[in-house]
């Protein structure tokens, strides 16, 4: 059985302008030690879906309409608030995008990390301080002992994100949710953080849910990928299958939109035209249909996720692989490789 399983999660926001259909029936699961990447552009519901799982959606205006989240034989959606609190930050931990705003500026690093271990693991002050030092060393902060009583502003961006990771790891979580943890960082620092998370994953064996918009990061860290669009998962597959043989036109479009550093010759990018739909007025049919090159009449009907290959699901009426073989020249080199 999977470590964490999400079934048919729906989240809505009731605003003055109307009902925002942020997450529309999302299901996925993640095993022990596995890394699931949730990919999508801003507003696709990737953050809202994991915040819903952790029950961190402000209610109102938000409301989790339906869904089951099975973790250790319990449905997190049915837990009382204090039961949920004992899981959050303990067995399930989070790292957020902006290390600047997610640390409290008036508390020292030690106070912030100690809080979690005193609360969840019942340590006293001295034990907590020791544990904090250990954690800061684990995330490779130089001279960790001397930096315990520093305030967040005395840390650089990369170090703050390390401190956030230390905090998340403080209670040996089984699931780590990382919401765009490297987006605010520079590339060389991003490489440091990714390397660190990979190392820690292999040492500790936790499951990671990594939310990002960057297909490059996904390629390097994920085992499986779920691509989200307009609150739906439109494709999910093992990472290599997804890049070698994308089955949804949106995934294909995303891959065609990013230039590759290792390109052999300059090729024109193939962007997706138009804009994502308004989540207050979702189209009745396939949400991607208005921007899709492969659109057929049937797209007025909403496609469900179907299995297109072992371990590979896509929500599309058209078999784009077949279509592309006939008409399209595959763009990325990896597509070429998989075909020959």
């Amino acid at each position, binding site marked *: 059985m999977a470590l964490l399983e999400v079934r048919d999660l729906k989240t809505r926001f009731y605003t003055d302008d109307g009902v925002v259909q942020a997450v529309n029936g999302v299901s996925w699961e993640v095993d022990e030690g596995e890394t699931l990447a949730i990919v999508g*552009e*801003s507003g696709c519901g990737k953050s809202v879906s994991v915040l819903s799982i952790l029950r961190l959606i402000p209610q109102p205006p938000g409301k989790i309409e339906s869904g089951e989240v099975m973790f250790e034989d319990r449905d997190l959606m049915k837990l009382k608030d204090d039961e949920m609190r004992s899981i959050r930050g303990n067995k399930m931990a989070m790292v957020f995008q902006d290390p600047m705003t997610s640390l409290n500026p008036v508390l020292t690093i030690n106070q912030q990390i100690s809080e979690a271990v005193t609360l969840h693991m019942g340590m006293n002050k001295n034990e907590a301080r020791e544990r904090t030092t250990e954690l800061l060393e684990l995330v490779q902060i*130089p001279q960790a002992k001397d930096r315990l009583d520093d305030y967040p502003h005395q840390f*650089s*961006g*990369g*170090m703050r994100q390390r401190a956030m990771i230390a905090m998340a790891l403080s209670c040996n979580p089984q699931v780590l949710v990382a919401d765009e943890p490297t987006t605010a960082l*520079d*590339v*060389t*620092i*991003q*490489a*440091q953080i*990714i*390397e660190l998370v990979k190392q820690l994953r292999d040492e500790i064996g936790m499951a990671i849910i990594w939310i990002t*918009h*960057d*297909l*490059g*990061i*996904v*390629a*390097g860290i*994920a085992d499986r990928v779920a691509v989200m669009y307009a609150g739906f998962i439109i494709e999910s597959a093992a*990472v*290599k299958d997804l*890049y*070698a043989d994308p089955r949804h036109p949106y995934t294909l*479009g*995303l*891959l*065609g*939109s*990013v*230039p*590759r*550093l*290792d*390109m052999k010759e*300059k090729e*024109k*990018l*193939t*962007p*997706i*035209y138009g*804009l994502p739909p308004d989540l207050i007025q979702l189209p009745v049919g396939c949400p991607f249909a208005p921007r899709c090159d492969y659109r057929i009449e049937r797209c007025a009907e909403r496609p469900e996720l179907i299995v297109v290959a072992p371990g590979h699901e896509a929500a599309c009426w058209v078999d784009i692989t077949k279509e592309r073989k006939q008409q399209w020249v595959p763009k*990325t*080199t*990896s597509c070429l*490789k998989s075909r020959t």
Partner: protein
Amino acid sequence: MGSENNVLLEVKNLKMYFPVKRGVFQRRVGDIKAVDDVSFFIRRGETFGLVGESGSGKTTVGRCILQLYRPSAGQVVFEGEELTTMKGQKLRSMRREMQMIFQDPYASLNPRMTVGSIIGEPLEVHGISKGKAKRERVQELLKVVGLNPYFVNRYPHEFSGGQRQRIGVARALALNPSFIVADEPISALDVSIQAQIINMLEDLQTELGLTFLFIAHDLSVVRHISDRIAVMYLGKIFEIADKDELYHNPLQPYTQSLLSAVPIPDPVVEETRKRIILVGDLPSPEHPPVGCNFVTRCPVKMDICEEEEPEFKEISSDHWVACWRVN
């Protein structure tokens, strides 16, 4: 440097120091050396990419070129004319030729102005057209950047990020400039929209014969769009080369680690890739290290690197490097 006559812009020993003031009397106690002795040239019709991490001084270079900051030292020669000493009306007329596209499409458009007045403002300021002629030109510009010409009376909040960036581009094009500084024009946008803007900039360049200084932190995008690339670090340019030369034959250790840090959207490639992971962070530009600016993080530093700054030299044709390992 750059004695050829197809050079549009030449930057010589550019320095931009911002004073650091402290205490009750706001005494000047030091300088932030945002740009410290930078030289390069840009050829007519090319896209010159400037990459670096935050705080490397790349935006300051762009702003110094347009004289939005008056440089502390050095020269900026545009079409044979020295800009750093130019003032008043003359500078204003030179600015017609040089425009800027900004990073944040939300902050760089005045929310109280209509699209028509945003794009039309430069036309009026420079006394090029008014009234009906201005309106027609604005509509034409909207068409050029792929927006509906009927949008003239709308306000910025009615547009998405990508559309706003198009408005920013239309404003930059209004005066028919020959040179555009694009300062991270796509980093605030979503992936699928980024590609739209990149393609548009490329098309505009071919159609209008523009020269670009493309400032960005994303090396994959810079390699895609540029002809030549300069790598900046802590106020210095470490390496300049043709984009393919820079990718295949990077000589400066920072360039090498930067290239290796960029993720490639292909799991098969990523699996076997060797990364050079740099330790530590960018030092403060207020107290740059003695010797080479990269010495605190360099994986292959030597003794001399901590003593003396390496000279910025042309190693082979069009390939410039500042590194003791190479010199």
